[in-house]
């Protein structure tokens, strides 16, 4: 199966898209919040690789072309941001304070749990940037002596988790303003949360995109201070 797979430069993309399509169909048919197309597609792809004993590297040698689009897609987030410029100006104070409070909360809660679990410094800083976008988070963890590979994994799982629970959490806590929803998603679950915010609406998406940038910057600085605590 490995050899068959390596013969194609597009099979990994096909498997990923097929998994996502199945996820979308299931969501359409049953409509439950936990039937998240992204989560379903990830589970299906992993199951497929395990069942047919396909190496991740073989899969990724073609699936990586999907990942390649992430950079221009992230740059594209500037467009909804620009379209929401008026809202941004009107609410800049609320936006900045919320993201700042959220980012500090993230690092403080990681710190407290690290104390609880008797983590050493390396383990602690591995989790410190868990709510920010992968590329920034890995850099931060690496610089402070954490395990970048685990940081990457926790960042991705955080994003997926945030994406999946968003509807329930926002409803439960009566967070119903589009700006607040977007900031909550982007600050807690970075780009994967933003993908969810985009589904909710244009304002949600723009605010979430902005949160990725601002929370990322705040965490680059803040993590250096928090890292000295343990």
């Amino acid at each position, binding site marked *: 199966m490995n050899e068959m797979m390596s013969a194609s430069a597009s099979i990994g993309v096909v498997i990923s898209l097929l998994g996502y399509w199945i996820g979308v169909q299931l969501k359409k048919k049953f409509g439950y919040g936990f039937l998240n197309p992204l989560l379903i597609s990830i589970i299906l792809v992993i199951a497929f690789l395990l069942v047919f004993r396909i190496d991740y590297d073989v899969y990724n040698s073609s699936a990586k072309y*999907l990942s390649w689009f992430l950079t221009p897609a*992230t740059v594209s987030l500037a467009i909804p941001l620009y379209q929401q410029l008026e809202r941004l100006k009107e609410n800049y104070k609320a936006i900045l304070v*919320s993201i700042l409070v959220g980012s500090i909360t993230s690092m403080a809660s990681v710190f407290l749990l690290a104390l609880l679990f008797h983590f050493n410094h390396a383990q602690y800083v591995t989790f410190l940037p868990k709510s920010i976008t992968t590329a*920034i988070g890995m850099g931060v963890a690496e610089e402070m002596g954490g395990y970048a590979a685990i940081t990457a994994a926790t960042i991705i799982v*955080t*994003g997926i988790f945030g994406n999946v629970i968003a509807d329930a959490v926002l409803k439960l806590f009566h967070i119903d303003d589009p700006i607040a929803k977007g900031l909550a998603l982007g600050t807690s679950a970075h780009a994967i949360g933003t993908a969810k915010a*985009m589904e909710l609406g244009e304002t949600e998406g723009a605010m979430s995109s902005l949160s990725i940038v601002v929370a990322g910057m705040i965490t*680059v600085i803040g993590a250096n201070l928090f890292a000295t605590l343990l």
Partner: protein
Amino acid sequence: MKYLKQFGVILLVTAIGELIRSVVPFPIPGSIYGLLLMFVLLCTHVIRLEQVKEAALFLIEIMPVMFIPAAAGLIVSWTDLKPILVQTVVILVVTTVIVMVVTGKTAMFMIGQRKGGKSDE
């Protein structure tokens, strides 16, 4: 042709963002510099919205599928995660929910204040 042109503009800004990343010593990815640069270019009308809009919105729409390969990579990092699995799950669940709620509630409160007294809580 229109879409190709739009995609070309987005890629050009992306490439410049990556170049900036290679000369600035912060752990900030090129995509973030690209995002900021694109935003500035739009605000200063160097790039007009109609020169990038459709292609950008298409890329954003299909963004979730771009995370699938990296997420499937959890297969590889599994061996690193396994020894601290319980702690990892607790940290992920607890902090993600807390951050989402605290950020959202802070925003609700601040927006309520701005709209004139009627705060959320």
